[in-house]
């Protein structure tokens, strides 16, 4: 069925289930992924369908969990690790950044780590500073990790299947507000992969290029719809994988629009989206810009608790709309 709408949690579960059916060496491990079904319900009924060995509940021991996944990956398995909140990857960082990321290079290429680490990130749940961060720049700054930030269920499914196939460690960052909402596009049946390292042009318009990641793609879409009704055209680009990063569609779009806005939820300072700006600044496309590049990102603060404070900490639809209007109006 081509009009099948799934939530991101359902799409991720479907991708994992397909991989489980395709390859006996794929298994899932993490805290409460078993009978509980995962803290956000992502593994759901997989425990009942695949059993306790392949949907493996672990002690609360993030460093040990990721380390065990690395060791299993080195020994012929293809583990999918679920870390309950991306914030808790801090506990596991040695195994992520010093072990998984470096083993292939550092050990001379004789070994590799086919492991996917899935983890929910992002604000909007009232869970405060230790359960709400966007940590993609941590991972993107470590050579040897591939980093995926899906913005919708269909992409999440195809990208996760590709990530599980990949012989390298892949960090798969799922925004928790996207788990329970259906995407705009149907999720195809079957096992179609979406290759890592290919940006997606979500929509095209003549006046402004917006590069957004994760949930900001959805917010930017809303803005683009509204502006389109007034005759302002937005090209919206979702990199989908931030390591490796495919800038080509961004260059091609900016050559046409002459205006670039970048949007991410994480803090502006040293954020991932700055890489897009840096690559643009150093490219021959820079001369096509008729406006200063606009950056919209989270405030440089820990995510606060109260809903009005939490909302103020990260870009909202109104902020994106105002910024988009300003850049189009002021620079002609």
């Amino acid at each position, binding site marked *: 069925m081509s009009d099948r709408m799934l939530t991101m949690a359902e799409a991720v579960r479907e991708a994992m289930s397909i991989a489980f059916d395709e390859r006996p060496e794929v298994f899932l491990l993490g805290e409460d992924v078993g009978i509980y079904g995962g803290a956000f319900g992502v593994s759901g009924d997989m425990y009942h369908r695949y059993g306790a060995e392949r949907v493996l509940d672990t002690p609360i021991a993030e460093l040990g969990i990721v380390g065990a996944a690395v060791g299993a990956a080195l020994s012929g398995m293809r583990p999918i690790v679920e870390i309950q909140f991306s914030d808790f990857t801090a506990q596991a960082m040695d195994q992520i950044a010093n072990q998984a990321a470096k083993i*292939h290079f550092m050990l*001379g290429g004789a070994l590799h780590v086919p492991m996917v680490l899935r983890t929910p990130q992002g604000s909007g749940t009232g869970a405060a500073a230790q359960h709400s961060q966007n940590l993609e720049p941590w991972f993107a700054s470590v050579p040897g990790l591939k980093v995926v930030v899906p913005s919708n269920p269909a992409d999440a499914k195809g990208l996760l299947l590709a990530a599980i196939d990949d012989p390298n460690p892949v960090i798969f960052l799922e925004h928790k507000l996207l788990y329970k909402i259906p995407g705009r596009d149907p999720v195809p049946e079957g096992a179609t992969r979406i290759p890592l390292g290919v940006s997606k042009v979500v929509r095209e318009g003549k006046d402004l290029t917006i590069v957004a990641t994760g949930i900001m793609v959805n917010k930017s879409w809303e803005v683009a719809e509204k502006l389109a009704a007034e005759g302002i055209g937005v090209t919206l680009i979702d990199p989908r994988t931030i390591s490796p990063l495919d800038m080509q569609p961004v260059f091609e779009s900016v050559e046409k629009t002459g205006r670039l806005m970048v949007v991410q939820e994480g803090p502006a300072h040293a954020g991932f989206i700055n890489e897009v700006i840096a690559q643009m600044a150093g490219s021959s496309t820079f001369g096509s810009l008729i406006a200063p590049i606009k950056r919209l990102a989270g405030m440089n603060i820990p995510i606060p608790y109260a809903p009005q404070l939490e909302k103020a900490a990260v870009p909202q639809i109104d902020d994106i709309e105002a910024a988009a209007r300003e850049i189009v109006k002021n620079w002609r």
Partner: protein
Amino acid sequence: MGHPLSSPEHAHHALLYMWRIRKFEEAVEDLFGRGMMHGTMHLSIGQEASPTGMCMAMTLQDQITSTHRGHGHCIAKGADLTRMIAELLGKKIGYCGGRGGSMHIADVETGNLGANGVVGGGIPIAAGAALASKMMKRGTVAVSFFGDGAMNEGAFHEAANMAAIWKLPMILFCENNKYGMSSSTEKAFAIDNLADRGKGYGIPGINVDGNDVVAVYEVAQVAVDRAKAGEGPTLIIAETYRWKGHSRSDKNLYRTKEEIEEWRTKDPIPKFIARVLEEGVLTQEQCDLIQNDAIEAIKAAVNEAVKAEPAEPSGLLDAVFKAVSA
């Protein structure tokens, strides 16, 4: 492989590998001294019996993870000496093509998942290898070598607990050489016997003289059998001592000359030679020949490695990721 005293071949193996480790480390120290190696080095002189005894209880398919002081584990598991020296010299034929150096040698052929620059880093990895062995019904054991210092890392605790609850075919092999860099076990532990930690995980904690290759083999074999029978992990504490400093910068300010001298009298190599002569497994002449063989093997490895082509920076960018097959 088998008990070091069970046949002349086994005794030969035990003695040869201890000498190989000793002579390898001496060669490394010499090459550093002559300015031919850069970076740093962590020598395991004085500790040769522990990896040799442990690895004699293992098959080629059994796996190990190792430490920053890992040359001995690598050699005991059967790695190629030339490729090891070549790696330390930054040569193309080195195990890591010059990208890893002393602290990152792995050898897939001999089940060596790699040395590690992070204290405790290899322990959860060995647990994962053991988990894979169990899930794939491979029948292999994974041994994690680590030092006393690693036993205070969270990685040790998390991995020991997971191995215990899942009854993984794993051995936690601590070479208690008495110091984590300058911190003595007396300063870093509130317990006298590190093996007591086993109780906290519900697994056996066994003490052994880590300078007695026969004793190490015997406890190792029991632990391997237990692991392969599905009964779970064992914590082995091998009491040993590093004669040399932690690394090149060590001035030995934290211990006395007398202490070092005392441990030199517990040298694992003469201890084993005395035993094989007493038991009549090898003759003095055979023992001398074995020592000579080790010296020659290391010399040959150094000569070949020195002559080998240096590693080139070209291709580094393509080495970060394994290529995705179509």
